[in-house]
């Protein structure tokens, strides 16, 4: 068969994938925009064009702003902390620490467990009176604290779970990158009398940069995409202290059944993801080209 003969062959090959991609990614993205300028159909009132009304609502909605602020804070704190820890893990596992196979397993295991399952375990950790943390802190006479019940500690408590779950996952990317750094560089650095910190700062860190960019982008996307632990541990509470954008969308759409307002919220989330995508391509443009 000649490759250039039948031009419909490649399109036939692409058809099933393209149809489903468009149906569940491109169409819904456009439909979200469309529905965000209509009112939600209710019993006795059909959906009508309302222009920017849903967005007006959004600007005046304190819960939306709280969710946005929480989400940005969530990304701003969990991403760097998880990255620092994952680099530390990778450096340790990379060196000949005793029992490093077991250690690697310990670090990586949270990454493959369902978030929903580990969230249940952490929920118990945080439970006042009975929970493990409460037991320990009471044993030391530090008293009891309702970690998930207090607005001030609920979001940080959830951040801990996310960091715990993701650091080991990122570690394997750093580990792979470290293994590709030529050993001669370490030898040269040693000859020059460089300290470990200097070697890391001047050699390893710059060489790990592409990995860091990759990890940061995926971590930021995850910060906006993953809300399983919110469902299990706080349901956005107390007093919206742990409200994140996607969870708020879920609540508005499937608890309050206001799909138009949920559409407007989704547009905000899509815009944020588009910004991430834009940054990604700008950052990577200089180093990569799809071919």
């Amino acid at each position, binding site marked *: *068969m000649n*490759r250039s003969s039948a*031009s419909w062959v490649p*399109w036939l*090959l*692409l058809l*099933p994938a393209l149809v*489903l*991609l468009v149906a*569940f*990614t491109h*169409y819904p*993205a456009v439909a*979200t925009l469309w*529905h965000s300028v209509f009112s939600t159909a209710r019993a006795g009132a059909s959906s009508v064009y309302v222009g920017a009304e849903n967005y007006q609502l959004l600007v005046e909605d304190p819960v939306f702003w709280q969710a946005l602020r929480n989400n940005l804070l969530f990304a701003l704190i969990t991403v760097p902390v998880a990255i620092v*820890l994952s680099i*530390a893990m990778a450096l*340790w596992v*990379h*060196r*000949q*620490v*005793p029992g490093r196979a077991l*250690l690697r397993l*310990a*670090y990586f*295991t*949270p990454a*493959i*467990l*369902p978030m*929903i*399952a580990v969230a249940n*375990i952490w929920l*118990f950790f945080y439970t006042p009176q*009975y929970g493990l943390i409460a037991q320990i802190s009471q044993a030391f006479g530090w008293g009891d604290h309702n970690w998930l019940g207090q607005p001030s500690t609920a979001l940080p408590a959830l951040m801990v779970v996310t960091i*715990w779950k993701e650091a080991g996952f990122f570690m394997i990317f750093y580990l792979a*990158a*470290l*293994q590709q750094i030529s*050993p001669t560089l370490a030898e040269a650095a040693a000859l020059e009398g460089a300290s470990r910190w200097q070697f890391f700062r001047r050699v390893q860190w710059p060489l790990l940069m*592409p*990995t860091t*960019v990759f990890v940061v982008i*995926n971590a930021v996307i995850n910060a906006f995409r993953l809300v*399983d632990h919110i*469902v*299990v541990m706080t349901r956005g509470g107390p007093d919206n202290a742990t409200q994140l954008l*996607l969870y708020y*969308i*879920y609540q508005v759409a499937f608890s309050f059944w206001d*799909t138009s307002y949920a559409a407007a919220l*989704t547009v905000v989330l*899509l815009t944020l993801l*588009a910004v*991430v995508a834009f940054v990604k391509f700008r950052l*990577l443009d200089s*180093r*990569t*080209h799809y071919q």
Partner: protein
Amino acid sequence: MTTPASPTSATHTPAKLRAGLPAFSANGRANLIDTAGAWLLGLLWLLPLLYAFWSAFHSSAYATHFSLSAPLTLENFVHAWQAAPFGRYLINTFVLVTAILAAQLVLATLAAYAFARFTFRGSEVAFMIVLLQLMVMPDVLIVENYRTIAWMGLRDTILGIALPYFASAFGIFLLRQAFKTVPRELDDAARVEGANAWQVLWRVYVPLARPVYVAYALVSISHHWNNFLWPLIVTNSVEARPLTVGLQVFASTDQGIDWSMITAATLMTAAPLFIAFLLFQRQFVQSFMRAGIR
């Protein structure tokens, strides 16, 4: 989502990855501080899991009472298994994960073949359309996708959960990269022998891309085994619910606060994937590295 720039991307030296995680020697031995720090963090990381095991295998009287003399029991597992249809949930998850993977492999193979080996008008536009899904994942389009699934009459079905994931941009991208590394000569030789396009795909490309298929399969399985929010939205009956949603229903409504039973159920939910992970640890880690991201 993947980044060709990353040293872990699919394009990079399969041979190196196949060789596993080689011991690194030039960087010297770890000193005491390293060891202590590494293990302190390791224990901290293991703590939640160790605790889950403790609680699941002891009666609830010992849930927070740590004593070496505490008798081991399987009662929590038995009770949890009887209290909720976990067997059914397990089958649902199994069907769900299998259906998604099968559809993904077939659709991605066909599309990747088109992109890798055919020159045609509009191929770049088509590829951009595919890549867009890497940015806008179905995960965040829950409202509109729910509307579509309801319109199709697939609410509360396993197919309804699975359908949005059938076409995977990531799978297409990964296989396209793999197919592009297949030497053109092999392709030509097969055609000279009289093989048609299907036979070339099946006999030449698919076998040569096997490691990539394995990597993608492991990533896809673990992602969809653990997926929660979308199945939670689409399902509302025992017949369609996967394990993750079943666990949440069990933990939030049925049980009050019997933590021993909840942790037992939690372990049951994670067990099949976790055991598979322990058995094929190296393949899993390499797959995640190779695939870049789930």
